[in-house]
């Protein structure tokens, strides 16, 4: 490949350019849109020349959208907060539950271990609505409807298997002798877990946690079915007010940017962990 002909190099360059344009253009375009007024957005043909404005963001963060027929009180900031609360707590809980379980599956071959692990993994692939619809009824009855706790629990369905399987792979890569050495030095099992296994699997736990956070943040269907207005995250919130305001396209764009920003920044910041987590999660385990 080092002796690529000039033609080949040009073709590769063109191909890569097309790839980058296809995957980056929508993000850039929406970002630009979010700084425009409806007037410039509605121009045809679309133009890149416009006077940037922060009004859309101001309206969103201030919580008032003026649209056709009604002034929409949006609690977009509340939606963002809900996303943060739901994602952070469900990932924290999943780490708390999933890391010890992952350790158990990695270290011990106990009766039924593979079956339990398979069951947990198969939750990842079950159609969410299968359980969500009956769950919506149950939640109302047991008072979990429209509570953070109920949602965080349901979020475990996506984040827990993910964490379990990625972290398990990392634990399996640590030689058990290293932990035995620590225990033989006189430390308890728990100390060995905390001081040896956890730090050594740290990068894996970080990768799994990041990935789980992104999945939780991006989730739509759980909150669509189970959350009320005051608990719903940005994914549902953004969809909800596109039609309700229906009009202020700049604000919709700004809402998309705001709700996308955390995951995109996270992806840029921790891309190596994420790539590894993705590959491990899907391929290696």
């Amino acid at each position: 490949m080092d002796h690529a002909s000039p033609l080949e190099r040009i073709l590769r360059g063109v191909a890569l350019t097309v790839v980058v344009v296809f995957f980056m253009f929508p993000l850039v375009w929406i970002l630009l849109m979010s700084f425009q007024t409806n007037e410039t957005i509605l121009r045809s043909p679309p133009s890149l020349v416009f006077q940037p404005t922060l009004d859309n963001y101001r309206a969103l963060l201030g919580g008032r959208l003026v649209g056709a027929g009604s002034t929409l009180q949006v609690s977009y900031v509340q939606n963002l907060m809900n996303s943060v609360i739901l994602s952070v707590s469900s990932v924290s809980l999943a780490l708390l539950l999933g890391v010890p379980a992952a350790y158990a599956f990695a270290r011990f071959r106990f009766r039924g271990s593979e079956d339990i692990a398979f069951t947990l993994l198969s939750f990842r692939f079950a159609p969410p609505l299968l359980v969500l619809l009956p769950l919506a009824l149950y939640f109302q009855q047991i008072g979990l409807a429209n509570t953070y706790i109920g949602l965080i629990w349901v979020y475990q369905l996506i984040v827990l298997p993910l964490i379990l399987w990625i972290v398990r792979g990392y634990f399996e890569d640590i030689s058990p002798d290293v932990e035995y050495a620590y225990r033989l030095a006189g430390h308890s099992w728990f100390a060995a877990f905390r001081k040896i296994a956890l730090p050594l699997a740290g990068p894996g736990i970080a990768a799994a946690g990041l990935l789980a956070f992104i999945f939780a943040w991006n989730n739509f269907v759980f909150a669509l079915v189970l959350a009320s207005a005051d608990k719903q995250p940005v994914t549902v919130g953004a969809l909800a007010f596109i039609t309700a305001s229906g009009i202020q396209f700049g604000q919709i764009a700004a809402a998309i940017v705001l709700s996308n920003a955390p995951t995109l920044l996270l992806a840029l910041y921790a891309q190596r962990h994420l790539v590894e987590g993705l590959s491990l999660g899907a391929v290696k385990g």
Partner: protein
Amino acid sequence: MSRREQDLVDAWLRGRLDRRGLIKGLGALGVSAAGANALVGMATTRAMAADFDWRAHAGTSLRLLLNQHPYTDAMIANLGAFRELTGMDVTFDVFPEDVYFDRVTAALASGSREYDVFMTGAYMTWTYGPAGWITDLNEWINDPAKTAPAYAWDDVLPGLRASTAWNGVPGGELGSPDAKQWCIPWGYELNNVSYNRGMFDRAGVAVPTNMDEMVEAAAKLNRDIDGAYGVGVRGSRSWATIHPGFLSAYANFGQRDLNVSADGKLSAAMNTPESKAFHAQWVRMIQESGPRDWSNYTWYQVGQDLGAGASAMIFDADILGYFMNGEGNAMAGQLGYAPFAANPAASAPTPNVWIWSLAMSNFSQRKDAAWWFLQWASGAEHGLFGATEMDFVNPVRQSVWADEGFRSRLENSYPGYVNQHDVSAPGAQIYFTAQPLFFDLTTEWAATLQRMVANEVPVDEGLDQLAASVDRQLRDADLG
């Protein structure tokens, strides 16, 4: 309160002054608008409290489930008066319309006690009522101990009262003597024409008075007006596509959705020759001069286009045209309104109505208190406040429509609106057959329309398939 202020307010209470005049008068006395509203509220409270124990449930807290809507805005703006009047507290969840009814279903299907009162349309009560989720309100309306003398249930337009009452028998007539009052009408919509006066003038097109003219006018407007299409109607895959202009016109041709046989069996009625002719005309109109994204169009898009000058007219809810004429729209102040009878042979329009109503959850633990709220929210006082101070159109009470301030305000800013209403109101009612499969059938109807517009299926064939499918579903549900 000074003596002169007191006089003004009393004059208003005795009905000699409209609210606008009252507040103007108070303004002349140096009372600010906000202060004036407070004064009026207090005065009303005193007056209303005089002959009914409004404070019977003081201290109770109610929870409402509300749709994002101007009616909701008006109600929320006036909630302070309710709190003051009754000493009750009210909290609420507001959802955008796209997910609102899913929320209601989720809450009620599970028997949630969270909400006491919620917004609904009449069609939904055909599901909620038989399911046992909502309460028959006759029990309260007819109980003098629980209903204020001034409530005047008869003041509510009779057609609306009838349309929100159903005996629960599939195919049963609405408003029959044995009907249960499943909800209280709150605000309603008539489906007529709202049009862009400037565009009509420029294209030299007259306001259409029947379907043929509409198809023609829309096509001409579509050609002649740059950057706008001819006519906006809804097209999303939903019951909401069927019930506005479409069904109003359909009913005007004397067509029905279902036949009800003597023994109460239901069967599809939409594959008659007349129906096929009408469908063909409707489909052609959309293909020729409808919005390009028609199949995604809900009332938001229909209204948005009219307000932004992207469409020349709409055949949809009159209040949508009303809102698009308000501030913040490119076409504000340039819209006109006209009644519309699709059938050239028809004597009057037959708009299918959409009635935003208030219903009481059967799972409420505070039904009496909830009724106190319903009375207030659907009462004349709040109706007048909403209609004159906020955008609470169309009000459901005859007394509000009789209010001169309200009429003149409409007449001045919304030319033709009052006429449109008055001409079509007598024929306004729900033209659907009340039955529990309403959403199954209308959704499939909308999907069939989409396929016809996309030329995936010829109109005749599509309707025959639809009718067959409807019949099968009715049979499956033991209705056919």
